[in-house]
């Protein structure tokens, strides 16, 4: 059987083979793409505890069910404590680097956001969020790939990029997305002569229609362009300092691709380590350390890109949230709704979007979890439509919005 990705890759490649994709075309496309919009998706894999990330200190149900992991309510002038946002919500203290972005209104929060599907399986829930089709396993491509696919064609191999060891589900499809662990090592290390590079390139250039050949051809297009623009040599600007952790490294390289004007439209990065079943901690501890890297990486990215951020939106997501009450081991088990962030150009920040369902026992989903009041597709489609200018229809098949738009983007 042929998967959609295999098919599309092979078909797409056949086209490239006929058109020849000459280098002058790449160059002209490259010039025209300089002012393009970019969407950066950050996936918090493992289900982040949204109630710790954006703490609802104004909800009377919060502290009581979390005897050892509840954050202290914010108090003016005490930076060790959570940072108040609007009198009801507060950022975890380790997210302090994000507070200025909240204050200058480039950062918004969507709370009680999640999937209409109720699975508590990480893998199914990630799958549903990445394909954009909750409850449907047969979907073969990801919603981000579809978003790219519906925009006008461009002949750059860098329309969609994931930084990481594998291509995430959400970029599988006909976007021709590529993934890489490092810009620096993205080449054939052939020593002084180019024979090996040209040899490999011709091996993958043959007319066979399959995933391997298609990917190979895209790879060498990307290698050539990247060698030309020397993206990996572009230093962080504006004094930005990325944390030396995977998300920081990924965002640093995404910023390099944006600054190199290679025609990037969608980028993706993962952050792991959110599955805090045991000892998640409060102001300090395991989860606080994750938030520290997360917040610092996002803030550094914003600082690095400076004015260019007006063309960029960063959207964070996680497959579900965690139980409202702490479990028997000072951690939390798999829950339902969580919080997501949107940062950058056009985001109407400084606001928490969505309807707060409350933490009272009768208000919880299944009597244990934060209820979902904003379907993640409402948020994602708004960002894709308003920021990338794509149409909603092919993005989330079967999605009938039951709520008004959030209005999160100007």
């Amino acid at each position, binding site marked *: *059987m042929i*998967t959609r*990705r*295999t098919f599309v890759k092979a078909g797409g490649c056949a086209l490239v083979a006929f058109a020849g994709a000459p280098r002058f075309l790449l160059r002209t496309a490259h010039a025209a793409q300089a002012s393009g919009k970019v969407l950066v998706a950050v996936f918090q*894999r*493992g289900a982040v505890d949204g109630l710790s990330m954006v703490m609802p200190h104004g909800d009377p149900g919060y502290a009581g069910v979390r005897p050892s992991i509840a954050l202290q309510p914010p108090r003016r002038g005490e930076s060790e404590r959570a940072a108040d946002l609007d009198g009801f919500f507060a950022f975890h203290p380790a997210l302090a680097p994000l507070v200025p972005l909240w204050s200058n209104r480039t950062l918004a929060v969507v709370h009680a956001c999640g999937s209409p599907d109720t*699975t*508590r*399986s*990480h*893998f199914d829930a990630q799958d549903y969020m990445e394909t954009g089709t909750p409850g449907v396993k047969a979907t073969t491509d990801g919603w981000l790939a579809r978003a790219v696919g519906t925009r006008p064609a461009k002949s750059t191999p860098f329309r969609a990029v*994931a930084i990481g*060891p*594998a*291509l995430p589900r959400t970029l*599988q499809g006909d976007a021709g997305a*590529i*993934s*890489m662990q*490092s810009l620096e*090592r*993205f*080449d*054939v*290390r*052939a020593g002084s*002569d180019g*024979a*090996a590079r*040209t*040899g*490999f390139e*011709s*091996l*993958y*250039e*043959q*007319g*066979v229609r*399959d*995933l*391997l*050949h298609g*990917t*190979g051809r*895209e*790879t060498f297009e*990307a*290698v050539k362009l990247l060698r030309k623009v020397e993206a990996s040599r572009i230093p962080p600007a504006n004094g930005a300092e990325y944390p030396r952790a995977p998300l920081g490294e990924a965002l640093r390289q995404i910023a390099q691709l944006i600054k190199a004007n290679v025609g990037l439209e969608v980028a993706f990065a993962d952050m*792991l*380590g959110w599955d805090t*079943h*045991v000892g998640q901690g409060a102001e300090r501890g395991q989860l606080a350390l994750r938030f520290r890297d997360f917040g610092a990486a996002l803030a550094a990215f914003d600082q690095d890109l400076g004015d260019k951020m007006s063309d960029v939106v960063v959207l964070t997501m996680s497959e579900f949230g965690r139980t409202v009450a702490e*479990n*028997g*081991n000072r*951690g939390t*088990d*798999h829950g339902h709704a969580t919080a997501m962030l949107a940062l950058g150009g056009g985001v109407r920040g400084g606001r928490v979007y969505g309807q707060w369902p409350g933490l009272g026992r009768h208000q919880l989903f*299944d009597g244990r979890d934060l209820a979902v009041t904003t379907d993640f597709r409402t948020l994602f489609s708004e960002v894709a439509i308003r920021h990338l200018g794509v149409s909603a229809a092919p993005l989330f098949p079967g999605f009938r919005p039951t709520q008004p738009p959030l209005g999160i983007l100007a």
Partner: protein
Amino acid sequence: MSRMTPGSVAATLMGAALGLGVLGGCTTVKAGDGQVAAPSGARGPSVGAAPGVSISGDRQILHALSRLTYGPRPGDLERVRGTGLSAWIDRQLRPRTIDDSATEQALVELTTLRMPISEALREFPRPDPKLRAQIASGEMSRQEMLERYPVEKRPARIAVELQAAKVVRAVTSERQLEEVMVDFWFNHFNVFAGKGDVRWYVAAYEREAIRPYAMGRFADLVRATAHHPAMLFYLDNWLSARPGFTVPAGPNRGRKAGLNENYARELMELHTLGVDGGYTQKDVTEVARAFTGWTIDRPQTDGHFIFRPAMHDTGEKIVLGRRIPAGGGRDDGERVIEILARHPATARFVATKLVRRFVSDTPPSALVTRVAGTYMSTDGDIPAMLRTIFESPEFFSEDAYRAKIKKPFEFVASAVRALGGRTDAQGGMALARASAEIGEPLYQAQPPTGYTDRGEVWVNAGALLARMNFALGLASGRYPHVSVELPALVAGADPSVPAAVLDRLLASIVADQAGPETRAVLAAQLREPQITRLSPDDRGPANTDVAKLAALVIGSPEFQRR
């Protein structure tokens, strides 16, 4: 059910294919197209449409070698031809009958491999917490810290040695199918070597909970992993207790503890029933209650399984509609394992994963049904399920032939084997790092799914380049302690006749299975001056750069498949 040898299956299918002469040259007839009738009498009643055209002769042997081993070595084809394919498969299904002392010898220097957990905990003490504070405050330099606490005395060495051992075994072991299955089951019952105390437990986990049962019974794997401190720690069950439990002693004395459903959920979702296996959130909670009290005795000094009645929830549990009466104690967990291991959803789930590993990323459902049937009728006997697969027409079909894409680790091991390579433990460490660069750092899969078997996930730009770079490094001998036998590979070919060298290489590395286009491209490469370089005096005959040519073959699309 009568057992057929692969040969006889092939013969039957060949007959069927020959009877449909028009299909003779077609390689893409799909199952379910209804064009090929099932060979009558060859299968039980569950057989649907036959899976298209079968492969035969040497291609059968190459196919079996590429699926049951980490890839053929030079000479393997001839060896299997000599013993006969079905006899060779039979032996691989009974690994204990195969002498593997040379591999064991190569692993002797990896001392942590055989260490009991208690000894590992003694040998690799935790750093003094004061040390960390002294570094943080600047009181002690990193250099001093390294001297006081050298890398070889850190627990990370346990995982490093285990990685090296995995590579050495994959490259060297004669019990290839068993090694393939150890990798398969480790990923099925994954633990992450970087999580807390798993650092000390991980080698023991593979040695005690996976390897002994990899070619045994599935229920024993579930039981062994459920009891092992590595799994108890990784999925947090060691902390799970009845609601309201107060820790009576130790550093956490007086601390309240309660239910943790992490293990219960993954036990059903990933280890047994599968996510669509029909369990509910209520079942997850009930299973978690059943396993309360299954914990680790003195995790930091001794580290073995213990049942603590005080932590256990003694009430009645209902799991998948089956009642486990109150007061069962430790047996509650054993009962749950029995219920899950005997469940038809488990048979189907395990069968699907096995067929995906050995046949195709899109497992033919008729074969899955038959393998699940074998599971139910043999009480989950792993060799019996494998035999059902290896004797199936689906296994020896054109659809399955070279249809799987190698995982990074499979690619690395198969490349070394294809070049007639050898590695010692040190080389194993270097090769493990190569696997990590291509996307599969060994024993480092953080989520409980382990590493996937589906090719799509592993094929991407960065990983493909990493494969090519590994091919270049390996063929040119840049991996210390890893030797490749290029001269032997091209023995008999005149180095001044590049085309002859290429023919020999393609024959030995991909057993002449390279497509005509690949052959043409490689032949064209022979005109590159760097590949057929002139001899040092610049006047003599061309001298083919065998290493570069071999690297191109290893990095070619064909070699990424098995």
